[in-house]
């Protein structure tokens, strides 16, 4: 009983997102039961009705902040949590929700809801760290299982986790894929943080930049690629905006 009480209280929360990253937890299969043996999940709205009114040792937060109510909610969660993990691209970099920021807010609201658009609150998309302090980041759309386990271990032990800051290409090369550029297609691997084992390229697709950009991309190398393959800069930038639009605010702030 003593030991049971010692188990860290963990809660999952979701904001604007597709909930796919939470689903990745259910997709762990029976391995989930081992994790459940080590932690005490006290709230997880998508799969549990239980509620908890005390503090959390670890809050795992999925989704982006896109309205006033969400902003207030995440502040309260932060106040009650010892450790806060931003979980998935929506939470860490704004993800696909960030594409909204490419438009004038009222214009895009009106395009979807018509003249009554003001009935439904909507603000600029922000990843969690642009609103409250974040202790751990798990990138990816969706998150990659091995990394989830790795970060959880770090968070439960209280040791830092270093988010990979080398490009997806480094993993892609190890996986011996034919480079997409050699197949005549632009891929965001050179600028995107690794850690997914070049998931998309292994399956014949390009990297869309879902894990966010490396802090120090090889600019000359990138310019070489652009020149060698006669690439249109706007095309590449447009591809980046699919996931990384919100990062502009990081640079300004």
């Amino acid at each position, binding site marked *: 009983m003593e030991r049971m009480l010692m188990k860290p209280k963990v809660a999952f929360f*979701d*904001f*604007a997102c*597709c*909930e*796919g*990253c*939470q*689903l990745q937890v*259910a*997709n*762990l*299969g*029976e391995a989930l*039961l081992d994790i*459940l043996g080590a932690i005490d999940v006290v709230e*997880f709205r*998508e*799969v*549990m*009705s*239980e509620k908890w009114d005390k503090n959390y040792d670890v809050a795992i937060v999925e989704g982006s902040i*896109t*309205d006033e*109510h*969400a902003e207030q909610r995440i502040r309260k969660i932060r106040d009650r949590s010892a450790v806060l993990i931003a979980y998935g691209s929506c939470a860490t970099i704004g*993800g*696909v*929700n960030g*594409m*909204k920021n*490419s*438009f004038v807010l009222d214009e*895009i*609201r009106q*395009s*979807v*809801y*018509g*003249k*009554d658009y003001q*009935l*439904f*609150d*909507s603000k600029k998309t922000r990843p969690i760290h642009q609103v409250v302090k974040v202790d751990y980041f798990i990138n990816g*759309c*969706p998150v990659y299982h091995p990394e989830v386990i790795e970060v959880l271990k770090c968070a439960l032990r209280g040791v830092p986790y270093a988010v990979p800051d080398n490009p997806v290409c480094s993993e892609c090369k190890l996986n011996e894929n034919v480079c*997409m550029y050699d197949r*005549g*297609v*632009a891929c965001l691997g050179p600028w995107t943080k690794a850690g997914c084992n070049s*998931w*998309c390229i292994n*399956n*014949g*697709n*390009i990297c*869309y930049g879902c894990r966010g950009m490396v802090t120090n991309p090889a600019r000359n190398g990138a310019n070489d690629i652009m020149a060698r393959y006669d690439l249109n800069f706007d095309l590449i930038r*447009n591809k980046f905006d*699919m996931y990384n639009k919100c990062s502009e605010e990081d640079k300004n702030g």
Partner: protein
Amino acid sequence: MANKTVKIDVEYLTRVEGHGNIVIDVKEGKIDKCEFQVVESPRLFEGMLRGRSIFEAQHITSRICGICSCGHSLASIQAAEDALGVTPTEQTIKLRKLLLDYEFLDSHVLHVYLLAAPDVLGVPSFVPLVKTHNAVVRRALRMKKLCNDVCDILVGRHVHPISAIVGGFTKLPRPKDLDAMLEMLESMRDDMAETLALAKTLQFPDFYRETEYVGLVSDDEEYPLLMGDVGSTDGKRLGKKDYRQATNEFIDPRSSAKFAKWSRDSYLVGALARFNLNSDKLHPTAKAIAEELGLKPICHNPYLNTVAQVVEIVHCYEHAIDLIKDLKKNGINYDEEIVVGVNEQQKIPVRAGDGVGAVEVPRGILFHNYVTDSNGIIEQANCIIPTNQNIANIEYDMMKLLPEILDQTKEEITLKMEMLVRAYDPCISCSAHYLNVKFVE
């Protein structure tokens, strides 16, 4: 009872995808309020799609929902191909059907076991079941993982498939992949039998409300999931291009999702609708199971949507096995593997177009519609999601049910209402967006 006063306020209904509230207010026996409110913050997908290449649409719109991301991908691809004038090959169609089978299996297993069963077994979630029904929880997680793993083999991953794109597949399964998928599915046979045994023990509330059921219909032999016309149990039928006439979306200020109606004030989509429309086309094994479970068309008890899901689990399971055997027998043509990109190589000619995709996903019929310019850039997009179509029907069910159970305790009423909404397996995170709506004045 006649003068009963009950106030129920369920903030953020649990065990559903996305955020919804149930609000009930009965004053001295008079129903003041009985609502299912969608309070998801809008993500404005249709607005965001404008200006993107039609070849990116599937990647973006699969992010509408993580649970049925394969279904969204397929509806999106179908709409894009319709706009571009691309006809998929027979092999591509078979593989897409296989993908859809996996999606149904995965999603229905999740719903039946982890989201709906706790209600019937009288617990707040699957977590306490780990102690009391350990074998059941293990089976559920095992089946879920297996569905996921076969999907990984086919398209790279289940949450947001990687290799299924406009034009076909970027990576086709090798013979060893087909063998592996078949072997994995076959290994699930015992768990399937146990699932049926469990399904037989589940008791659902007795409730009845006649309504219209809407889903894909077709003239061929197969239970239509990937292709077909839009049909209803009220005898209506339309080509998918005319989907707006069937859905007639309208908005209501209390909800960030939209409502739909066709012949009546509301209609139902999903497993029960498909069963009611097409039960004669089910795989023979699934037909036999429906009989064993006592499910007959036309069934008007929405709680039994969960039972219809069990029948579909069996159908999709057997159908997937048959499909893989067929692919093994006929072999796969690897020349059909395609290279992606935002069509940099102009492999697929672009043109101005207006394309519609109509695909059954686990929660019901899903529509995607894109209008593109001559460069294949999206100018307008519209996605009509199953839950949007079901919301009005859920509310009418709630309103009929409430007086019938008003003599019960507040807790019982709350639970029955929650169960009712959960039976629809709503996917609320996706219901919160629609586009260029013609507002009803």
